[in-house]
């Protein structure tokens, strides 16, 4: 029906849309709910055209109340449905934090395994569009702290295309974080979205001198950095974490054991964040393979600035990644 679905060339946004269409067609229990997902076609146009195709029962506009509609989604999941709840951005998810952490994450445990909560919650995340402090968060690392949740961050077109159905197969709550900068990303699907796993890191570029460990939109900054580093004689390996909870310890350690140097690039803040967790795991599991301390590039420890030059200065950038990697390698 849609030519874009047949050809491999697509955008991240379109890949997400196709993933939703696949899911809606394959399973009548699946439905999409959230603010502006129906008539408006989604804040980021991900669900454009889906209301017309699937109708009001399957594409449901919700009131402006995250606590209410996330709770309703959890209830629907408990009741046997497979809801895909869209929270416009992770910034607004704070209003549904109690639902996510105290209901979705805990009901399986608290019911002694009697109730699963197979809800998928999709959220846009990240900074860089001058949306200022309250609308530029990266909370995926924060959510990765909570047992009972699965946290994924698709960074490639194939993962955007494939992770939703993998998430819908999970009996447990899955939070999918889509970086706002990726929606417009163009490219070709490689095809392995068909066998997409919900966990496991992926080596996006092989290298021997330093491991760049990252996820989400930072992946592309790391790939750019790796290219620049190779011109400086440093061979950087780039590992896309894909799943932040659970983390792929084996994948991370395999890379660190090979290169002996680790540089974590995380758009979250450093203090008590995902980069700190990964560093600790490396120290616990691959200490004797380290030839240098673990390094990390994170967003500066301030609320995200509004003016463009300050926002860019606060976020991880390709140039800072290159500099840090060179320092690690003693160059």
């Amino acid at each position, binding site marked *: 029906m849609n030519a874009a679905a047949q050809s491999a060339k697509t955008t991240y946004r379109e890949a997400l849309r196709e993933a939703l269409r696949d899911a809606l067609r394959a399973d009548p229990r699946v439905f999409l709910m959230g603010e502006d997902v129906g008539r408006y076609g989604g804040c980021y146009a991900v669900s454009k055209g889906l209301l017309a195709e699937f109708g009001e029962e399957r594409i449901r506009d919700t009131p402006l109340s995250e606590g209410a509609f996330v709770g309703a989604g959890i209830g629907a999941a408990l009741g046997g449905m497979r809801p895909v709840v869209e929270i416009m951005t992770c910034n607004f998810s704070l209003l549904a934090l109690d639902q996510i952490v105290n209901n979705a994450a805990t009901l399986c445990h608290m019911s002694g395994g009697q109730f699963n909560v197979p809800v998928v919650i999709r959220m846009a995340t990240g900074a860089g569009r001058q949306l200022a402090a309250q609308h530029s968060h990266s909370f995926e690392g924060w959510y990765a702290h909570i047992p009972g949740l699965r946290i994924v961050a698709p960074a490639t077109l194939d993962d955007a295309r494939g992770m939703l159905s993998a998430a819908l197969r999970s009996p447990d709550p899955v939070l999918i974080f889509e970086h706002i900068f990726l929606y417009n990303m163009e490219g070709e699907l490689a095809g392995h979205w068909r066998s997409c796993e919900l966990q496991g890191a992926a080596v996006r570029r092989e290298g021997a001198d330093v491991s760049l460990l990252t996820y989400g939109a930072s992946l592309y900054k790391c790939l750019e950095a790796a290219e620049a580093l190779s011109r400086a004689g440093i061979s950087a390996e780039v590992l896309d974490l894909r799943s932040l909870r659970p983390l792929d310890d084996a994948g991370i350690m395999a890379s660190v054991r090979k290169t002996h140097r680790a540089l974590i690039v995380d758009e979250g803040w450093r203090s008590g964040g995902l980069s700190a967790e990964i560093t600790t795991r490396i120290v616990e599991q691959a200490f004797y*393979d380290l*030839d240098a301390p673990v390094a990390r590039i994170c967003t500066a420890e301030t609320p995200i600035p509004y003016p463009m030059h300050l926002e860019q200065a606060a976020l991880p950038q390709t140039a800072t990644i290159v500099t840090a990697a060179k*320092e690690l390698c003693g160059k």
Partner: protein
Amino acid sequence: MSIEFRMPALGADMEHGILTEWKIAPGDVVKRGDVVAVIETQKGAIDVEIFDSGKVEKLVAEPGARVPVGGVLALLEGEAQAGAAPPLSAPASIAPLPAATLPASVAVSKGPRRKISPAARARAQALKLDLDTVIATGPNGTLTLQDIETAAKKLKPAASAGGMREVIAAAMARSKREIPHYYLSLMIDYSAARAWLDAHNAKVPVTARVLPVVPLLKAIALAAQQIDGFNGYYIESQYQPAAAVHLGVAVAQRRGGLMTPAILDAQNKSLDELMQALSDLVSRTRSGHLRASELAAGTLTVTSLGEESVDAVFPIIYPPQVAIIGAGTIAPRAWPIDGRIESRTTVQLSLAADHRVSDGRAGARFLGRIRDLLQTPEKL
């Protein structure tokens, strides 16, 4: 160094006191806690204790003087004690602060801790590399894997005895291929030589003691000059006898391998000189400081495995030499004398010689001559 005894604050709101009476005089020795003065305050007369120890140098305040709190009352010679001013109501003795002592473990410091990456440490251990010998060139002075690799590369040539084994293999294979060896062996009574050695060694300091093998070396050198066919080179189908006896001595190396440097002109050296030359050669062989001439110069070689406790050695000639003598353990053995069996110090000598140059008769005479020379060790 003068210590000032100052007017204490004997009450929170005290501003001054009147020194009523001194209980000390210049020259007195006071110790901490002694009552030294009576001071009048609004609350009455108080006996005041001094909180330093020392000899009273000068009484600054006169009796009757009104001195503000903190004003100097007297001067002492001596050590100031660490401690607070005494409290008002009950001047308690203040325990002196303990002198700072470093715990024994902290006091021993080897200097700043080196920054060595875990991976570098692990690799150094695997290579049995001493980290103290590795130079750190990583960021911030860290010793990294790269530094270990660099150090390991530098060591490689010296570390392996592989090259030497190949050289020995080539020489020995050639020897066996080209030289028709014949073998003779003779058990020798070494008692006379031993007795002479013991007597000699008893008279000299330890560093000058002569090893048991040395008289043998001299006897061999002399015999090689007296009997033709055993000292020289076989080159291009011709035997070239050598005038001097440069006696090659087989020295085992610590890492495996064997070298045979020569004691030059062994026939002319006294036993003491031979001993010196021998120890010098052995130590320089082991430390890798031999001269090329010493390695190439041997005209006849002796190999002694005495310490290894074998009875006899069947050696291989080092080409282009034409003979080699082996000596087994110098040990007491049963020896028939005048129909009796006695225990005598003996050594089994063996000769391997080039049959193109000499024959068994000559070889037997050669060994016999060595034996005879050893019976009169004082003439060696």
